[in-house]
């Protein structure tokens, strides 16, 4: 069976959920061979094996932390050369897309980004993508070279599928360009204790209607009652009420959770571009004419400061 390279996104050995989802998709088109780089790379092996990796190629060097992107491209290319895979899959993070793009040019391949599904096809893997603020769904494949595809979080269920997961050291020789962009300082983002926005199964977002930074606690309380991530519309971010890292939309993050709850968000096209692929959509808004109500599975026309706290209390009660 053909081997499929899967680039591993991990933090000090803890594999992030989108990579585990990627292994599910990789098994549809071949045998997953995982590539884990940087500090803690070897510690990823158990989780990767549990989810279907037949092999785990690992390598650590200071270059991965000290320089931007290119050392990781060099390593992925080394894995590509060693394995000769039928496809290369990378999580659709900002960095993941950059790594995949540079690899594609180097190996003379096409690239598909932000796939939301992947199936085996007669002429190679067929990727589903959404276009134009998710108003269209396209199916595409790679026409030249070995398919390089990046996949969005929440595109597949995480499935256990125990495999050998044999750890092998990857030999990497860094290119001259690897040290071109130096990382001179790194400040880890303070953890909120909430799930990461793009990976979360439930996202609770607030917009203009929240009307002030101090009021965002209403949104956060609802999110915490559901174990959800907190999002914000561009209006709320531009007003300085919530950090840009939490912005959902065309110029922010694209989310595709099982449940999306929009509070005080009208639903401009720019916001819809970032959340329209959510499976179930709920909105709370005073304005019955707000365009967000065209998208919802359930909508409440009302004041979010009445509805959201009542909802939060009810959820807490039901969860006991």
């Amino acid at each position, binding site marked *: 069976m053909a081997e499929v390279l899967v680039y591993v996104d991990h933090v000090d050995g803890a594999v992030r959920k989108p990579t585990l989802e990627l292994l599910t998709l990789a098994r549809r088109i071949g045998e997953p061979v995982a590539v884990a780089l940087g500090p803690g790379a070897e510690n990823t092996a158990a989780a990767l094996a549990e989810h279907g990796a037949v092999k785990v190629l690992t390598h650590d060097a200071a270059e991965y932390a000290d320089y931007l992107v290119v050392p990781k491209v060099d390593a992925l290319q080394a894995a590509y050369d060693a394995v000769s895979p039928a496809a290369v899959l990378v999580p659709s993070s900002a960095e993941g897309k*950059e790594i995949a793009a*540079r690899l594609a040019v180097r190996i003379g391949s096409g690239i598909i980004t932000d796939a939301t599904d992947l199936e085996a096809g007669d002429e190679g893997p067929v990727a589903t993508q959404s276009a134009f603020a998710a108003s269209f*769904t396209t199916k595409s494949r790679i026409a030249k070279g070995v398919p390089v595809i990046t996949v969005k979080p929440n595109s597949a269920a995480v499935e256990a599928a125990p495999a050998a997961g044999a750890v092998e050291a990857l030999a990497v020789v860094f290119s001259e360009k690897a040290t071109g962009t130096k*990382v001179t300082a790194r400040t880890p*983002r303070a953890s909120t204790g909430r799930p990461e926005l793009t990976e979360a199964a439930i996202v609770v977002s607030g917009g203009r209607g929240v009307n002030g930074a101090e009021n965002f606690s209403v949104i956060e309380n609802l999110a915490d009652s559901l174990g959800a991530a907190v999002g914000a519309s561009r209006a709320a971010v531009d007003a300085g009420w919530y950090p840009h890292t939490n912005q959902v939309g065309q110029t922010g993050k694209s989310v595709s959770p099982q449940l999306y709850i929009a509070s005080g968000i009208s639903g401009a096209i720019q916001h819809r571009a970032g959340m329209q692929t959510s499976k*179930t959509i709920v909105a709370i808004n005073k304005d019955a004419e707000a365009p967000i109500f065209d*998208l919802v599975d*359930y909508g409440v026309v009302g004041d979010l400061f009445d509805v959201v706290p009542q909802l939060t209390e009810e959820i807490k009660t*039901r969860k006991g």
Partner: protein
Amino acid sequence: MSLRIVVTVKYVPDATGDRHFADDLTVDRDDVDGLLSELDEYAVEQALQIADAADDAEITVLTVGPEDAKDALRKALSMGADKAIHVEDDDLHGTDAIGTSLVLAKAIEKAGFDLVVSGMASTDGTAGIVPALLAERLGVPQVTLLSEVSVEDGVVKGRRDGDTASEQLQASLPAVVSVTDQSGEARYPSFKGIMAAKKKPVQSWDLEDLEIEADEVGLAGAWTKVDSATERPARTAGTIVKDEGEGGKQLAEFLAGQKFI
């Protein structure tokens, strides 16, 4: 020594229009108004600020696209860019991101550059990979997704805010930079700027000028193939209730029914 800045921009269909695909599954450009991609305005703005801080700098704005794409160049020129290059060729129709990066890289090399500034992504394709592709093809450092950027003594510095950390980056010129919408509001063109833009030079290059073969680009030469594009069926109308004191509880009931609680 003049700092040569090239800003790559894209002419995109207006997101508030009825965007759709043409019969050949490329983006239909005839039925929707086009404009300079909003995210590229931030690139033009940062290029202008970098040029202002330099002793001597020249900003060339570059686009690849059909005749109408000149509108995007005009907007950038009216904001303050010095000159423009329009790469236009019938054989470019249907070119994908990999092909576009090839054309842009050849044009940037031909124009001559110390710094390339791009937006973080286009507002139509939204992939966000062209800046990295340009850095790879040009063989220069990528300093991408910056919310802050500055250039001094041949060194570009910037801040990149990622999922898990915020990083300070540094590279020597020549380099490719991309900036996010957090880099600073883009200026509006002044009346004076709009009038001045009419007199600024816009060069037109075709594939032959860039020594690119027709089969390396366009729909036939694309590295990816779109097999189908289906309009998402309109969502079946959801349940909408008016809050008369029990809205939160009713919503909880719905969420419980969907097994979210």
